[in-house]
Each structure stands twice: as C-alpha cells, then as structure tokens.
C-alpha cells in the first residue's frame, strides 16, 4: 500500500493546506459543552464546508455528487482529517455511509434521486432502526411487524438504541413482513420518514449522562410501499450491504485519531504524582504508556493490511472483526490509563467536547464511552465467535437440545 500512498503526496499536501485554511481554529472551544442545537448547527456547517472543498463525500461516486476519490485518496484524506483534529461528522455517519451503501446497491432510481442529493446538501440526517429490546446480537429475531395494506405498509413495534434518532429526518428500518418464514427470510427493509404519525421517541440516558440514543415506538405507522428497499421479505440481504458499507475507513480514521490523541496521555503523565515526583517517573505508568503505544502501532498495521486488501480488490475475511476487537479493547485500556492518570479529580463531571474524537482528555467520559465500542456494531463476544468459526474454522458452539 505504501507505494500507492507515496504517489499521493501532492494530494496529501493539498488536503493538509485546505484543512489548515478552513478548519475553525477555535472549534474545540466552541463545541466544549455545547448544547445539542449548537452541536447540530456546527456539524451541518462543517459538513457544508467540507462539501464545498470537495472532501465531504469522498467515497461517493461523482454522478451522485461525491468526489469519487480512489480508495487510496480516501485513506490519505482520513489520515489528514485525524491529524488536523477536525470534528467527526458523527451526525452524518449513517447518511454518508449506510444510505449510499444501501441505496446504490438496492434502491430504486426514484429513491436515490429523492435522498442522495438531499444528504449531500446537509439537510438530511439519518438514523438506523435495526435493534429491538429483544433483538440485538440476535438481530434476526426482530419482531417489529409491517403489514401490507394497499399502497402502504402498516408498522407496529419497538426499536431501541437508535443513535441520533432525535435529530434524524429518516430512518433505515427493518421489520418483519412474513411472520411465518424462518428468522432471516421474512424481513423487509424500509425508508421511514421520522415525521410520520405514530412514531414516538424516548431518549435513553447513558452512563455518561448524555442521551445520544433512543427508543423508537411505532404505532400503526404507515410507510408508502415505494419506500420498500429491495425485495419484500428480502431485507436481510439488504441489511448486509448496509453493514458492509464503510470498508474499514472509519476504523482507519479512529486509529489515526488515537495515534494523535496519545499526546494527551503523555501530557497527563507529566502531572505531579501523589507520592512525589511526576506520574511518568513511575515504572508502572511508563510500562502502561509503552503498552498502549505499541498496541497503537500494531492496530495501524492491522488496518493497513486490511486496507491493502481492499485496495487491491481482494476479498476480506475476518480481519474487520479482529480489528474491531483490537481497537475497542485498546480504546478501553487507553482511556482507563487516562482515568488512572487523572485520579479522582479526573472523574468530576466536566463539559463534553461535542463531535470530538474518542480521546478528549475528559477521561471519565472517554472511558465510559469506550464501553459502547465493545457492544455496538456487533459485540466483542460475537466478533470472537466469527473469528473462531470462520477464521480459525473451529466447530460452532453446540445448539441447545431441541425443545421437549
């Protein structure tokens, strides 16, 4: 991969210069402890600036208004975004990755025309309505019911953990259309307009005190039949496209941000130690710093290897699962070290940096938030099962004996 990237040095310089010229120098001050409204407004403004610069939708094809960058260019761009410490476009995550990944493969022309340009204008925020109270890891057991009645589907049920649904205009929704079919077969995939009557949200309070995700109640919600994506009862395959849509670039960005964020740990380690001297004078602290540093290097190599495979067009195996486990556990240990260095004083409530990286130096919040990463997007236990069964070809866990 290095060769491909070396050729892109001029492009890298361009991106770096653009970011230096356009990234508001005070954005972190402004977003520290910002309200939800200020956060939304700033995300929108930054996304529009990125679009004007030609960097807002690097992976989208030119025909749909994206930059149509090569994969190598995208890698360079995300490295530079991380290096510059620019905001994460967290509110647009589903809209920028999952929506095109799903609509370009399965959507109708009308659906694409209706939504893709609107996403790039910054006006459409999307959320994902897959998980339910009784269907998380075991997503295929979802029960939200959609019944066809004339031109509409009538949907009843409950979704949960829907991130940023309170800001979203549309939702990627999975519902059961054929209750008689076996688990994965009777599911369909819809575009849900969040303003439809019968849609109610309840924010869920996270341990960090914030409420970024929601329960979603659906009571006799009517979805026009033209909002079905892909074949009726064929939603499971569509959902696989959604989940496969971001091809390792998110984790690349996160790993680069972590590499940059390591500085925060080093700075925190300069503080005075309770038993005299500085924290970094202590062998145990130094050993933990080195451990985190070495693991960041290893993570970047794992990601490099994955991206090289994607770049060369090879099919990837269980690498994404391995990388997700590796990243999320490293993030946990990274932030736990931050908490150790911060001491008790590091655990008082402080303002949160909205749109910041996963390492902000507000260690308690960073640490608690790190736990979301070992659960969301397929828990570490599920990822390990995938690696064990598909990668190491170990036998599957025994199924429980049949009922009776």
């Amino acid at each position, binding site marked *: 991969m290095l060769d491909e990237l070396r050729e892109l040095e001029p492009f890298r310089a361009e991106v770096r210069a653009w970011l230096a010229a356009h990234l508001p120098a005070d954005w972190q001050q402004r977003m520290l402890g910002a309200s939800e409204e200020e956060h939304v407004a700033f995300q929108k403004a930054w996304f529009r600036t990125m679009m004007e610069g030609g960097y807002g939708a690097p992976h989208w094809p030119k025909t749909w208004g994206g930059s149509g960058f090569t994969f190598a260019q995208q890698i360079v761009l995300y490295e530079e975004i991380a290096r510059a410490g620019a905001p994460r476009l967290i509110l647009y995550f589903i809209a920028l990755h999952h929506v095109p990944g799903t609509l370009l493969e399965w959507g109708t022309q009308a659906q694409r025309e209706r939504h893709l340009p609107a996403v790039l204008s910054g006006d459409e925020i999307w959320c994902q309505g897959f998980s339910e109270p009784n269907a998380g890891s075991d997503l295929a057991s979802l029960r939200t019911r959609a019944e066809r009645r004339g031109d509409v589907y009538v949907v009843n049920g409950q979704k949960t953990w829907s991130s940023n649904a309170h800001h979203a205009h549309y939702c990627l929704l999975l519902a059961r259309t054929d209750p008689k079919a076996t688990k994965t077969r009777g599911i369909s995939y819809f575009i849900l307009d969040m303003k439809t009557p019968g849609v109610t949200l309840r924010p869920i309070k996270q341990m960090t005190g914030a409420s970024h995700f929601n329960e979603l109640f659906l009571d006799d919600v009517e979805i026009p039949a033209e909002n079905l994506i892909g074949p009726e009862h064929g939603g499971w395959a569509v959902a696989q496209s959604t989940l496969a849509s971001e091809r390792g670039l998110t984790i690349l960005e996160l790993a680069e941000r972590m590499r940059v964020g390591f500085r925060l740990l080093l700075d925190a380690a300069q503080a005075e130690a309770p038993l005299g001297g500085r924290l970094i004078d202590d062998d145990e602290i130094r050993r933990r710093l080195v451990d985190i540093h070495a693991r960041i290097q290893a993570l970047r190599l794992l990601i490099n290897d994955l991206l090289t495979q994607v770049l060369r067009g090879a099919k990837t195996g269980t690498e994404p699962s391995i990388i997700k486990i590796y990243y999320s556990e490293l993030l946990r240990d990274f932030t736990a070290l931050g908490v150790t260095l911060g001491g008790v004083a590091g655990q*008082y409530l402080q303002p949160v940096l909205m749109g910041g990286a996963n390492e902000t130096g507000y260690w308690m919040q960073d640490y608690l938030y790190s736990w979301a990463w070992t659960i969301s997007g397929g828990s570490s236990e599920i990822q390990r099962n995938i690696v064990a069964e598909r990668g190491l070809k170990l036998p599957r866990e025994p199924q429980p004996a049949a009922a009776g």
Partner: protein
Amino acid sequence: MDFQLSEDQEALVSALQSILQDHAELPQAERFSYSYFNADLQRLLGESGFLGAARDIGPLEAALVTIETARLPVLVETAATGLVAPMLLPADGPVDGPVALIAGGAIGKAHRNLPIARTALVDLGEDVAVLTIDPADVEPVASILAYPYGRFRAIPDLAAARRLPGAGARLRQWWRVALAAEVAGAAQAALDFTLDYVKQRQVFGRPVGSFQSVQHRLVQCHAHAQSTYYLALRAAWSGEAVDADCAASLAQQGVQKLLFDLHQFHGGMGVTTEHLLHFWLYRIRALQAEAGGVHGIGLEIAGRMWPAATQATGADAAPQIAEAG
C-alpha cells in the same frame, strides 16, 4: 478464623438484612441519579446499634455490617462511621456521623461523602486531624461516581483541629479494611444482579449465560469478589496492617475487569443508567483510588514484606529477593 460465620455473626447479619430489605428500593425520582444517600436508613442503623458493632463486638462484625450495606443500591455510610472511626477513637463515645475520610495532601480537592458528613478524619501522614463538619462549609461537586462528593468552600484550619498524634498509619490501615469490605459487598451485589440478567436474557434461543465464554468470565468475577470478601474479613479479624494492605490491593486491582465484564454482559443496557449496575460499580470505581490506590498500597506491601529487597536498587536487588524466598 475459619471463614464460617459464628451463630452470633449470622444473627447479626440476618437482623441487619431484615432492616435493609425494607429500605433497599431506590425512590423512583432517584432512578437515574448517580448516587442516592438514604438519610433515614442511616439514622435507623445508628439507632439500632449497627454502627456500634466495632465498639460493642469487634471490627470483624463492623466489616460484616459494611459488606451488607454495600450490597444496596442506596447509599449509607457504615465503613468510615462504623469501622474506621471507632477503631481510631476507641476511647471516644459514638462519633457524630456520617464520617468522611480525607487524604490530607489533597485537602483542597473534592472528597467522597463530604456533603453528608458531620465528622472528617484527615490523614496527615504521621498524625490524624479530626474535623467537625458544618454542611454549610461544603460545596457539592458533581461526579459520576456513586457517592456524594464535595469540597471545602475554604480550606479548614488543620492546625486548630483536634489531633491524634501518630495515628496516621492506623487510619490508613482501617481505611483499607473498610474499603475492601465495601468493594466486596458491592462487587457481590453487582455480580448477583448480572447473573440474574444473563439467566433471563435470551439470544439465539438460549440465555446469554449459557455461553461458555460468558460463563468463564463471570466465574472469574465471582472468584475476585469472593477473594476480596475473605481478605477483607481476614484483615478485619487479624488487625494486621499487611493484611489490610493485601485486602485493599486485591479489591482495587480486580476492579477494571469486573467493571468491564459486568457491563459488557448487559449488552447495550450496560452503557445506560436504565439498570442499577452503576450504583455498585461506580462506588467500586471511586474506592479504587483511595488510601494510596493500587499503586501506593502495592509499594507499601512490598516494603513491609521484603524491606531489604525493595530498598536495594538496581543490580543487587535480585539476589536479595532470592534470599528472602
């Protein structure tokens, strides 16, 4: 000590449990708080003699009281009030509680339980200062940790406070026993809560707790909680400083894994305040850093157990450890 509670100890624990049962519920309005101190229960425990156990019976019984109260999601202060203060001030009558414990070097920072405290014991290294706390002098500090935290509006005049010369080491010793007991109770309660959850939560047609990868980690958590419990009881029983250090060190070391696994097995629920887990785990987390923390206590243990080896530096350290072994 044979780890079996005597009949009297069993009776004490079950009498206490029957009182606690009626007060275990969190009021609905406090469900999403980070901590909830139940002042009525605190008073009741004092009136019914449970905070006098250390003086009336012994420190082991006081530790049992702390372990039991730490199992509740609601907070009452029995560790410093019922165990540390009586062991430090045996000649005094009952101390005006709740009691807060303060590291003197950090007096200007926020302290656990200070907003509810009437008395504070301040670790000055050699000596201990005993402060009477006026709630008006304390400013609450919001924290995610499951205790009320507060700092002094003005740094109190320690020179004018009552002083217990030479009592510093003894304060730290009982502080460590008390924190180990509190961690033990909270860890067992958090584990029990999680065990209930994984038995009833179904995925792929079976309970989450039926997967071996989940079982093994919960067994590790159980082993940790049990060891903490026994080490805490031994330290309370023996009155040996090194036992107190070991109990606290073990209690504090296992926190990381315990916290993570118990949250993890709750799935998405584990990152919310929709359940009660944080009331216990965020107490454990707070206690992890106290009385020297894992690190400080570890060094003290090494210093006590292998003084020659730890004082030596560099190359000549290894042979001395070999001799000691």
